C-alpha cells in the first residue's frame, strides 16, 4: 500500500458503498498526501446491495460528502450501479475509461526528480548450477518495466522498497510491448483482431519465456515426439522444429540464401573476398542470431528476417551483389558515407582493440586516416582496402605523424576511452601546430619506437604542480614584434570587423618578419568576397533591426512577454534543445550521456540480489525500482518536522522505534523529539506534543529537504486503529545534532562563611569542577551564586560565592544542558524478502515490557511522599548576666516576660444602674418582637411567590406545546418539498437515460 502510493499516477479508489469507508482507505489517502498527492477518482461499488433507493441515495450523498472533504470539493466520484452477468455495465466502465484517458496529471516534485520503474516481470538469471550448489547465494535478477520519472543512468544506485539498495549491472532498452499509436494506426477507426497485442509479462504463453537474448521453453513432464500435426503449445512446436532440422548450422550458413528483402530476387552469397576478421564476425553473428530467429520462423534453414544488427549485413553489401543500391539509404548509421569509408573507420575501430601499447598511436592515426580519406578520396578508391594495404598506410602515417596537416580529433573518444595522459591530449594539437617551436622536441622524429616517447613523457610529468596558472605559452618574443601577427588578433575585437583603418595606431612594431604567420592569418578571406559577405550580413542585420523596430513601434506591449509566458518559452526552448542535442548519435552513446528516457521499456539487471526476493516472490506484492539521487545513498542525521496524526490514538515516545516511509525507503529508526526553546537550543521532548508540530531527529538515509514522509508504529494489521502514527517533512541533513536535555546537578554546603560557601557532592573530581568554573548556581531558597574554584580535599568540592548567606540545610543546584545524539539505528523494512510479507521490526519499549511482564522502571526517589515539615523551634538567646552588665544600654537584650497579672481592662467589673438595666431589657424585647414580625412577613411572601411560579410554569408549558406543533408542521412541509424535488430530479435523469 505504501509503495504503490509512491508511484501511482492515478488512483482508482474503489469503495464498498454497502460498507462505507474503511480505515485502510483513510490510511491510504494519508499516505498519498505525505508522498505527493496524485489524481484520485473514487468509485462506489456494491451499490446494488443497498435495496432501498432512499437509503442508497443517502449513502451516496454521505459518502460523497466525506470523500470531498478528504480530497477536495468536487472530486470525481463514480458510481457503479451493480454487477450484471458477472461484470459491471459496459457503459459505466466506458465512461470511467474515458475519464481516465483525458485525465491531466500534475507534476509531483519527488517523482520528477527520481527515476523509477514498476516491474512487470522478474527473471532470475543466476546459473542453475550455482543455485544448486548454494541455494542461498546472491542472485542476478532482471526486472522489466516502463521507466518513469526522470532519466535513468546505469551508474545510479537503486532502491527496491522491501528489498534494499541494489546496484544496477546493466540496462537494456527493449522495444515497447505496447507501442504508442502511430499516424498509421490512428487512421484505423477500429482495432482489428490482428492488431490487438497482448503484453502478458510473467505469464508463459505457450510455455515460452523470452529474455533479452534467450528463450526458455517449458515442456511439462518428459518430452517425447508425438505426431507433428497434433496441436501443442508453441514451445513444444519449437523444440520439435529444432529436432526437425536436418542440416547443421554451418551447413545452412554455407548454403544460406539470405534475402535482404522478402521480394529480393537474388539471395546473398557469402564470398571469401572479405577479410578474415569480418567473415568471422558475420559467422558468429549468424550463430547467435539463429536461436532468436528460430523462434520466429518455422524453418530454421532459410532465415529470412535479418533484424539482428547493422554489422552483419555489411560485408555482403560491400560485395555489391543483390540489391545493395536500394539498401543503402535504409542503413542509417552509414547513410552519409560511402560503404568503403565506413569500412575504413571500422578497421580503425577494430584496431583499437588490439592493445594498449599502441594507444597513443591509434588515435592520431585513426584521425589521420579519416582526414586523409576526406581529403583525397580518389587516392584511396582504386584499391579495395585490404588489411595489408592498411598496415602499409599505417606505417606511412606513423612517419607523417608530426606533419602539420589539420586533423579531426574525436575528443569524446580521446578523453573517455583512451589512456592518454591529459597532458598528451592537450598537447596533441601542439604536436601538429607548432612543431617548429624548439621546446617541442618530441621523440617522434626517430619514428620507429613510439613507446620511448610515452615513457619519457611519464617521467617528466611527475613534477607538475597542482596549479591554475599554466606556464607561459607566449613562445619566443620575436613573433610579438611582428605586426602581421599582432594584427591577427584584431578580428577578435568589436573594433576588428572594420578592417585596417586603425592600423596606424600600433606603430611601434616595425620588425616585419613574415615567418611567424599563423594559421589564424591564413584564415582571413579574400577582400572581394568579404565585401560582398559584409554587405549581405549588413542587409540581414538591418532587416532584423527593422523588424524589431516595427514590432516595438507598432505595439510596444506586444513584444513584451509576461513572466509566465517567458518561463514557458524558456522551458520549451530547453526541451527542444534536450531533444535535439543528442538526436544524431547512436542509442548506446545517447544512453551513456543522458541515460534512459522515461517512457521507454527497459530491462534492468540487478546484481547481488538477496535470494529471498526470488524465492519468496509473490506477484501480489509489486516490485518497484526507485532510482536514488547521489545524495540519497548516504547516511546522516535527518531532522524533520513531525506531527502526530490526529487520528492516531497513542502518543509517541522519544527513542521508541518508529517506521518511516521516506523517499523510496521504508525503515525503522529511533527518533528523538525536540522543540525549539526560544531559538537558543533544541530541547528534547520525552513525548510528542498534542496537536502541535515538533522536530524529530533520527539517524537514517539522507533525503532531500522538503521531502514528505509518514510514520508507523507497526505495519501489521493486528491493531484495528489508524496506523499512520505521524506525518511530516524533512528539514535538514547533518552529521550531528545539538539536541539537549535538562540536567540538574545538586550539592550541599559543608562550610559556610558570610557569602562564601564550600559545596560538596556536586562533582566527583576537581577536573569536573574546573569545567564548570564560573557557572551559575542557585539554592532552593533562591539565593544565586557562582562556582569559583575546586577544593583540594574532598574530591569534587568547590568554593562558591552567593549573593547572601546560605544555610547548611540549603540544597545547591546547577542547571545544565546535556546534549544527546540519536542512536545510530537503521533497520530497513525488508518485507519483500519474507514469505508471509509480515515484517516485524524492533519492538516498542512498551511492547517489550508487556511481553516480558515488566513494569516501567521506578526510581524510589521519584515517588511522591507526604511531606512532613515540623515547625522549627528556636532556642532563646541567652546572654550571660555578666556580659549583659557590660553591654551599652542600646545593645542590652530587651527580654519581655509574659505578663503576670491581668490588665486593668481585664480586671474591672461593670455594674449597671436599675434605670439602665430596664432600658436595656426594653430594647432587647423590642428587637425580639421585630424579628418575629419580619419572619412572619417573609413566610407569607414565599407562599405568594410559589403560587405565582406555579401559574407561570403552566403558561410556559402551554406555549411550548404550541411551538412544537408549529415546528412539526413546518418540517412536514419541508420534507414534502424535498421529496418532490428529488422525485423531479430522478425523473429527469431517467428521462435522460432513455
Amino acid at each position, binding site marked *: 500500500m505504501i509503495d504503490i502510493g509512491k508511484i501511482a499516477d492515478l488512483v482508482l479508489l474503489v469503495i464498498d458503498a454497502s460498507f462505507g469507508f474503511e480505515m485502510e482507505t483513510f490510511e491510504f489517502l494519508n499516505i498519498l498526501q505525505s508522498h505527493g498527492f496524485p489524481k484520485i477518482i473514487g468509485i462506489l461499488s456494491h451499490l446494488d446491495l443497498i435495496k432501498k433507493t432512499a437509503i442508497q441515495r443517502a449513502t451516496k450523498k454521505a459518502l460523497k460528502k466525506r470523500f470531498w472533504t478528504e480530497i477536495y470539493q468536487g472530486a470525481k466520484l463514480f458510481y457503479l450501479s451493480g454487477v450484471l452477468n458477472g461484470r459491471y455495465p459496459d457503459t459505466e466502465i466506458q465512461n470511467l475509461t474515458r475519464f481516465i484517458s483525458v485525465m491531466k496529471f500534475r507534476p509531483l516534485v519527488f517523482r520528477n*526528480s527520481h527515476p523509477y520503474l514498476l516491474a512487470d516481470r522478474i527473471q532470475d538469471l543466476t546459473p542453475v548450477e550455482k543455485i544448486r550448489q548454494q541455494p542461498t547465494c546472491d542472485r542476478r535478477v532482471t526486472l522489466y518495466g516502463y521507466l518513469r520519472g*526522470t532519466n535513468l543512468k546505469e*551508474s*545510479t544506485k537503486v532502491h527496491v522498497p522491501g528489498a534494499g539498495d541494489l546496484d544496477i549491472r546493466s540496462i537494456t532498452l527493449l522495444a515497447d510491448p505496447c507501442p504508442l499509436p502511430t499516424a498509421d494506426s490512428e487512421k484505423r477507426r477500429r482495432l482489428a483482431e490482428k492488431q490487438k497485442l497482448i503484453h502478458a509479462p510473467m505469464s508463459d504463453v505457450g510455455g515460452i519465456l523470452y529474455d533479452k537474448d534467450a528463450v526458455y521453453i517449458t515442456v511439462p513432464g518428459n518430452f517425447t515426439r508425438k505426431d507433428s500435426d497434433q496441436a501443442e503449445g508453441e514451445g513444444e512446436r519449437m523444440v520439435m522444429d529444432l529436432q526437425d532440422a536436418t542440416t547443421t548450422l554451418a551447413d545452412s550458413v554455407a548454403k544460406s540464401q539470405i534475402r535482404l528483402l522478402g521480394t529480393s530476387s537474388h539471395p546473398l552469397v557469402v564470398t571469401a573476398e572479405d577479410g578474415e576478421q569480418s567473415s568471422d564476425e558475420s559467422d558468429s553473428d549468424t550463430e547467435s542470431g539463429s536461436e532468436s530467429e528460430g523462434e520466429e520462423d518455422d524453418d530454421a534453414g532459410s532465415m529470412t528476417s535479418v533484424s539482428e544488427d547493422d554489422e552483419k549485413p555489411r560485408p555482403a553489401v560491400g560485395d555489391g551483389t543483390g540489391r545493395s543500391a536500394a539498401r543503402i539509404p535504409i542503413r542509417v548509421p552509414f547513410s552519409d558515407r560511402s560503404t568503403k569509408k565506413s569500412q575504413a573507420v571500422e578497421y580503425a575501430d577494430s584496431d583499437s582493440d588490439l592493445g594498449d601499447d599502441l594507444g597513443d598511436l591509434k588515435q592520431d592515426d585513426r584521425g589521420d586516416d579519416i582526414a586523409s580519406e576526406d581529403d583525397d578520396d580518389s587516392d584511396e578508391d582504386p584499391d579495395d582496402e585490404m588489411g595489408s594495404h592498411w598496415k602499409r598506410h599505417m606505417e606511412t602515417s606513423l612517419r607523417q605523424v608530426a606533419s602539420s596537416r*589539420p586533423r579531426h*580529433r574525436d*575528443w*569524446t573518444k580521446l*578523453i*573517455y576511452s583512451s589512456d592518454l595522459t*591529459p597532458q598528451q*591530449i*592537450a*598537447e596533441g*594539437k601542439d604536436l601538429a*601546430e607548432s612543431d617548429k617551436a624548439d621546446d617541442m622536441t618530441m621523440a617522434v622524429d626517430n619514428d620507429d619506437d613510439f613507446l620511448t616517447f610515452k615513457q619519457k613523457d611519464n617521467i617528466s610529468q*611527475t*613534477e*607538475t604542480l*597542482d*596549479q*591554475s*596558472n*599554466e606556464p607561459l*605559452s*607566449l613562445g619566443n618574443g620575436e613573433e610579438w614584434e611582428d605586426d602581421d601577427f*599582432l594584427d591577427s*588578433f*584584431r578580428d*577578435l*575585437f*568589436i*573594433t*576588428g570587423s572594420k578592417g585596417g583603418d*586603425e592600423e596606424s*595606431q*600600433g606603430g611601434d612594431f616595425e620588425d616585419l618578419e613574415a615567418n611567424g604567420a599563423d*594559421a*589564424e592569418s591564413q584564415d582571413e578571406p579574400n577582400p572581394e568576397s568579404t565585401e560582398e559577405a559584409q554587405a549581405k550580413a549588413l542587409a540581414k542585420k538591418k532587416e532584423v533591426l527593422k523588424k524589431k523596430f516595427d514590432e516595438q513601434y507598432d505595439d510596444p506591449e506586444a513584444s513584451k512577454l509576461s513572466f509566465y509566458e517567458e518561463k514557458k518559452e524558456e522551458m520549451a526552448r*530547453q*526541451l527542444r*534543445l*534536450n531533444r535535439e*542535442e*543528442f538526436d544524431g*548519435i547512436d542509442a548506446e*552513446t545517447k544512453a551513456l*550521456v*543522458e541515460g534512459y528516457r522515461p517512457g521507454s521499456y527497459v530491462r534492468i539487471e540487478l546484481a547481488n540480489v538477496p535470494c529471498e526476493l526470488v524465492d519468496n516472490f509473490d506477484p501480489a506484492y509489486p516490485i518497484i525500482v526507485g532510482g536514488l*539521487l*547521489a*545524495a540519497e545513498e548516504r547516511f*546522516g542525521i535527518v531532522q524533520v518536522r513531525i506531527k502526530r496524526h490526529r487520528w492516531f490514538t497513542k502518543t509517541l515516545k522519544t527513542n521508541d522505534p518508529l517506521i518511516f516511509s521516506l523517499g523510496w525507503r521504508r525503515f525503522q529508526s529511533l527518533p528523538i523529539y525536540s522543540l525549539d526553546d526560544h531559538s537558543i537550543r533544541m530541547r528534547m521532548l520525552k513525548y510528542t506534543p498534542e496537536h502541535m508540530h515538533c522536530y524529530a531527529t533520527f539517524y537514517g538515509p539522507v533525503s532531500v*529537504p522538503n521531502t514528505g514522509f509518514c510514520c508507523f508504529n507497526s505495519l501489521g494489521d493486528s491493531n484495528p486503529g489508524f496506523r499512520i502514527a505521524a506525518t511530516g517533512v524533512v*528539514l*535538514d*541533513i*547533518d*552529521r*550531528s545534532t545539538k539536541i539537549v536535555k535538562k540536567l540538574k546537578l545538586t550539592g550541599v554546603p559543608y562550610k559556610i562563611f558570610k557569602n562564601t560557601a564550600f559545596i560538596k557532592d556536586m562533582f566527583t573530581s576537581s577536573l569536573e569542577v574546573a569545567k564548570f568554573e564560573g557557572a551559575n548556581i542557585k539554592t532552593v531558597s533562591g539565593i544565586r551564586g557562582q562556582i569559583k574554584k575546586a577544593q583540594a580535599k574532598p574530591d569534587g568540592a568547590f568554593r562558591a560565592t552567593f549573593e547572601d548567606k546560605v544555610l547548611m540545610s540549603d540544597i545547591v543546584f546547577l542547571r545544565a544542558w546535556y546534549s544527546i545524539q540519536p542512536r545510530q539505528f537503521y533497520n530497513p523494512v525488508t518485507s519483500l524478502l519474507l514469505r508471509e510479507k509480515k515484517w516485524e521490526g524492533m519492538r516498542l519499549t512498551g511492547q517489550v515490557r508487556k511481553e516480558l511482564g515488566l513494569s516501567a522502571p521506578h526510581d524510589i526517589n521519584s515517588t511522591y511522599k507526604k511531606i512532613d515539615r515540623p515547625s522549627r523551634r528556636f532556642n532563646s538567646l541567652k546572654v550571660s548576666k555578666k556580659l549583659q552588665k557590660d553591654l551599652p544600654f542600646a545593645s542590652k537584650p530587651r527580654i519581655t516576660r509574659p505578663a503576670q497579672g491581668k490588665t486593668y481592662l481585664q480586671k474591672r467589673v461593670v455594674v449597671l444602674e436599675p434605670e439602665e438595666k430596664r432600658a436595656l431589657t426594653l430594647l432587647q424585647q423590642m428587637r425580639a418582637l421585630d424579628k418575629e414580625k419580619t419572619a412572619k412577613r417573609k413566610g407569607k411572601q414565599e407562599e405568594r411567590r410559589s403560587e405565582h411560579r406555579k401559574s407561570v410554569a403552566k403558561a410556559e408549558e402551554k406555549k411550548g406545546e404550541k411551538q412544537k406543533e408549529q415546528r412539526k408542521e413546518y418540517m412536514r412541509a419541508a420534507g414534502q418539498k424535498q421529496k418532490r424535488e428529488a422525485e423531479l430530479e430522478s425523473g429527469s435523469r431517467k428521462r435522460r437515460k432513455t
Partner: protein
Amino acid sequence: MQWTGHEHFRTRLVLSMISGKAVKITGIRSLDKDPGLRDYEVSLLRLLEKVSNGSVIEISHTGTAILLKPGILTGGPVIHDCPLSRSVGYFLEPIVALAPFSKAPLMLTLKGITTDEKDLSVDIIRTVTLPHLAMFGIEDGLEMKIKKRGAAPGGGGEVQFISPVAKSVKTLNFVNAGKVKRIRGIAHAVRISPQFSNRMVDSSRSILNRYIPDIYIHSDVYKGDDSGKSPGYALSLLAETTEGALYCSEAVSVPRPDPHSLKERNKAKKDRIFQDEERDDGPAPITPEDVALTASRELLVAIQKGGCVDRKHQWIVLLYMVLGSEDVGRVRMGQLSPRSVQFLRDLKTVFGTSFKISAVDDSRADSELLLSCYGTGFVNVNRTIA
C-alpha cells in the same frame, strides 16, 4: 573512488565533497625524494574540515595516501591561515566551487599571499571566477573583499570571501562568445613605489590600445599595514566580450626570495632536477614594463584561444554544468587544458556524466570545442529549510 598521484588534488577533493562520496588518493609523491603531502595540501584538507561537519580525513603514516570521507558542508564564519608556500588562490579556487552548496552562507577569511605566479590571484578570482559562477545563477550575495594585500614570499594579505547558498544550479547554454568589447585590469604595487603600477598601466595600454580603446586599468594602492610584508607588484587583465564571456591573464613580479630559503633551494637543486631553472637562480628582477608586456600578451593569447569560458576556469564551468538541472547544457570552449581533460575523466567517475565534445570547426586542429552534457539535477541537500 580511488585515484593515484598528487596531481589534480584539489579538483578531486572538490568532487568528493560535492558528491559526498569518499575518496582515496594514494601514491602521493611516493617516488619523490620528499614523499607525501606538502604543507599547503595538508592546510587545504584542514580548511575543508573547517567548512564541513563530520568530515573524516585520514592521512597515512608516510603521507602518501589520504582518505577523505566527506561530511556536510556547513559554511558559516571560518578563518584560515594559509601557508606561505602557496597563495590564497590555491585555497580559494576549490572553496569557491564548493561554497554555494553549504548549509549556511560561508564567510571565509583567508590570510596569506594574495598574488603569486602559480595560482589565480585574488583579483582574478574576484573579477573573473565569481562572474563565472554568476552564469549559473549564483550571484546574489557572492562577493569577495581584498582587505590586505600580501606579496610573496612574506605574505600578510587577507581576503574575505562571502558566498550565498544555492538551491540548485542553472543550466548553462553559452555557445556564442561574441567579440571583445572592453578590457579591464587591476595593477597593484605593494611595499614599493606606487609609480610601478602606473608604469604597468601605461605599458599595457601601449599594447592593447591597438585593438580597442575601451581599456580601463585600475591602479590599486594599499598602504601601510594593508600592504603585507613583502614588496611586489602585479597586473591582472580581463577582457569582456559582447556576450559576457571573460578572458583573463596575469603577470607577477618575481618575488625577492629571503636569503634563508634561497640557500635551501640551492642545496636542494643539487639533488633534484628542476624544470625551469630561472626560478631557482634567486633574484632575477623583472621590470614593471615586462610584467605588463607579459600580461597583455597572455591576454591576447587567451582571447585568441577563444571559447565562452576562460581557460583557467574551464573546470569550474564543467563542474557546474554537470551539477545543473536535468537538461542539456552547452558551452563553447577553447582548447581544453590538461587539467580540464583530467577533470572530465574525474567527473565521469564521480557523477557518471560524460560530455559530448565536438569541434566547432573540423578542419582546424586547434578549433574551439562545443561541449554539451546532460545535467545530473543536483540539488543542494545540505540547505536547511525553515
